[in-house]
């Protein structure tokens, strides 16, 4: 269990939330770090990664490559494809993406049960405090949206005593990158069969700067937690024996899918 932090306004001790901020870290490395912190530490964590490189396709744990990804262009352009440890759908992330991840003990938020919809509801309330002044913010099904246009996609992984809620925020995106993704069979109802361009929006059209956004997240967290910045390098060197399940889909696997023309989970 995480140690208690400083007393809040009411005098009650706020749980400690360790904050890691980084920039342009490859998404595979970020996901490996998240798995390690989830499985190997007892602490609450917030990870903010502003931008990532190279542009990478990230699928959920059960995603079928042939159903979600345009494999031929991906092979042609050598776009990395990652299968992450959490559930949810497929995204392509790049320098226009800002990532925010919460890793919490199940008792970190009083009364919050470790189930997907409960965690999503709590996150929606927290992000409402960040975004309400910039636009008509909504938690729509499992997405963050301004009006009916999505700018943040979520996924979770829940263990016996801890959970991860991570979000990829579209500060900006390259519409050409969306051509690497197929429109998924399983889509939220509010999408209404819209293509990527009509369904998504860019945060930069609503918020003055990335730092205004990330500072807002840290401030909102500070209402629930005692936020303690941490040194990234110290964390990267710990628990090196842990083997994460997030994996890069190999080029050979992608080529086999193309040659077999069968849909199977790689």
């Amino acid at each position, binding site marked *: 269990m995480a140690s208690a932090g400083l007393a809040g306004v009411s005098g009650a001790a706020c749980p400690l939330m360790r904050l890691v901020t980084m920039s342009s870290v490859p998404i595979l490395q970020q996901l490996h770090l998240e798995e390690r912190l989830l499985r190997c530490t007892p602490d609450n964590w917030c990870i903010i990664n502003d931008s990532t490189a190279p542009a990478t396709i990230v699928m*959920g*744990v*059960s995603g079928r490559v042939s159903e979600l990804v345009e494999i031929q262009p991906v092979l042609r352009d050598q776009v990395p494809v990652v299968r992450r*440890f*959490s*559930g*949810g*759908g497929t995204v392509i992330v790049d320098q226009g993406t800002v990532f925010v991840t919460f890793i919490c003990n199940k008792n970190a938020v*009083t*009364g*919050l*049960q470790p*189930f*997907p*919809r*409960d*965690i*999503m*509801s*709590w996150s929606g309330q927290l992000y409402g405090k960040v975004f309400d002044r910039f636009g008509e913010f909504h938690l729509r099904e*499992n997405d963050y949206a301004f009006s009916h246009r999505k700018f943040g996609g*979520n*996924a*979770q*992984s*829940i*263990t*016996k005593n801890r959970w991860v809620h991570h979000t990829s925020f579209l500060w900006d995106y390259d519409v050409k990158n969306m051509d690497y993704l197929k429109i998924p069979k*399983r889509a939220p109802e509010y999408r209404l069969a819209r293509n990527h361009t009509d369904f998504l929006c860019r945060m930069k059209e609503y918020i003055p700067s990335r730092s205004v956004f990330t500072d807002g997240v840290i401030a909102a967290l500070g209402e629930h937690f005692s936020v303690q910045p941490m040194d990234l390098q110290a964390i990267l060197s710990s628990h090196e024996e842990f083997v994460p399940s997030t994996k890069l889909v190999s080029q050979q696997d992608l080529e086999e899918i193309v040659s077999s023309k069968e849909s199977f989970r790689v």
Partner: protein
Amino acid sequence: MALRLWARSAANALKLSGTGGARAAAAPAFSISRFFSTVHDGLKYTQSHEWVKTGDGVATVGITDHAQDHLGEVVFVELPEPGTTVSAGASFGNVESVKATSDVNSPISGEVVEVNSKLSETPGLINTSPYEDGWMIKVKPSSPGEADALLDAAKYTKHCQEEDAH
């Protein structure tokens, strides 16, 4: 938070009562209902919402009606291979629902002797029949009597009520 959970449970109850024929057929006569989740006598339960049915040297394991209701529609199930060793309280697999993977923990220790292969094609069996067709693994227990320390139906019901009361 409590009001939202109650409202969702009420909505599920109304939906379930609309299809009550199929659901009632799946529930044995000895089941008892508390709030909107079904709990069966004769099973043992964990605080992390798994159930175990022991008998004839093999124990059957799954997740409870309370768990499937809170998880939402299950779209994918990851199970171990037969022959795998499981430990009481430790994860043996996971289910995916509503953008989340959720670990499923074994109530007892032992060796997996059978997994429910139907769940690969029809993961929703966990939602529609959590105690019958949605069973997940069968285990040859390594510590007979280990399940005796788990929660009975009444204690598990109380545990769920306390959790939902927050």
